[in-house]
């Protein structure tokens, strides 16, 4: 199974249209392998993006350099997946 160790989901809230534009640019960068869980809409609305561990630093630097506010929504996706698996096994038993 593919693992998601260290992948994070960030909650990003662009403050203005300029920041929305910056995020749209980020979205088109295929090599970043970003997975938008909650899509980018307009300024002031939250965006949820899963970011592979290997791309985290680059994305966070991008956000900080453009002064785009974000917080960590899921610290480590794999931890949640492991918990989900455990819960399923428990219920199956």
């Amino acid at each position, binding site marked *: 199974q593919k693992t998601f160790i260290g992948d994070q989901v960030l909650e990003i809230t662009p403050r203005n249209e300029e920041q929305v534009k910056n995020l749209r640019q980020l979205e088109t960068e295929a090599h970043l392998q970003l997975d938008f869980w*909650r899509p980018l809409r307009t300024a002031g609305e939250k965006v949820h993006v899963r970011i592979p561990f290997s791309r985290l630093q680059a994305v966070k630097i991008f956000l900080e350099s453009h002064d785009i506010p974000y917080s960590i929504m899921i610290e480590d996706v794999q931890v949640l997946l492991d918990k989900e698996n455990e819960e399923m096994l428990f219920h199956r038993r």
Partner: protein
Amino acid sequence: KERSSGFDFGTYHTLEEIFQEMDNLAEQYPDLVSKLQIGYSFEKRPINVLKFSTGGNKPAIWLDAGIHAREWVSHATALWTANQIASDYGKDPSITALLDTMDIFLLPVTNPDGYVFSHTENRMWRKTRSTISGSLCVGVDPNRNWDAGFGGPGSSDNPCSDSYHGPSANSEVEVKSIVDFVKSHGEIKAFITLHSYSQLLMYPYGYKCTVSKDFNELNEVAQIAAEAVTSLYGTTYEVGPICSIIYQASGGSIDWTYDYGIKYSFAFELRDTGHYGFLLPVNQILPTAEETWQGLKKIMEHVRDNPY
């Protein structure tokens, strides 16, 4: 053989377990529930639908879930809903009246290949598993593959994208099977699709940002349904046309059904009140299903009471 009463609706299940439970429901309620297969997926898995009918060929309501593989709470909610419909008939006056007037078709796993793949290989998988000639990437977003503004804004022509629309409208057998079924039935009066997450209740259009001719009625019904959803646990929903409350998205199922003549076409995005996204903990499955049921009932009652 596990009886339906022993089935745990409060956890996530494999495809085999879901299919088994569908069989159990059909066995447990033989006068009301039957299972029918409307096609095969790309990898030749059956596309199984539960039919709830008190007899005759009545006008019908269609419910589906899990067109996007990773949205597991939608599959779980659909299965809980199936059990609820069956057990409420003859007890709940509203559901009894509904099933005396209309049939219900429920497809709990619209994208079985993707669902299996999300269990076995990649929990974050969203698309089908069809292969595309000339591309190493696999799968089509089946909710960009319907013949409604196909290939337009909000869908991708890149086979590696999660919103790839596919080579042509209905190219995905999972989509075509439903289209063929809807056309051959001829009397589907409502089409409701369950997704997750972000707590939205939407109606057409997504492929264009103009309002539909039934906007006022659809909005009113959706507002009532969303209030009903909220009434149980306080989960807040946003209501509106797809284009204005998510983004412009072409090739979606409810746009096709609406343009085909199914006025009551709605899409739910189920809950994540705790910022878990597609990894909603199992202890939220039952509350999600229960609150969604409140909204579904409001829509179904409106459909029942407003024939067209």
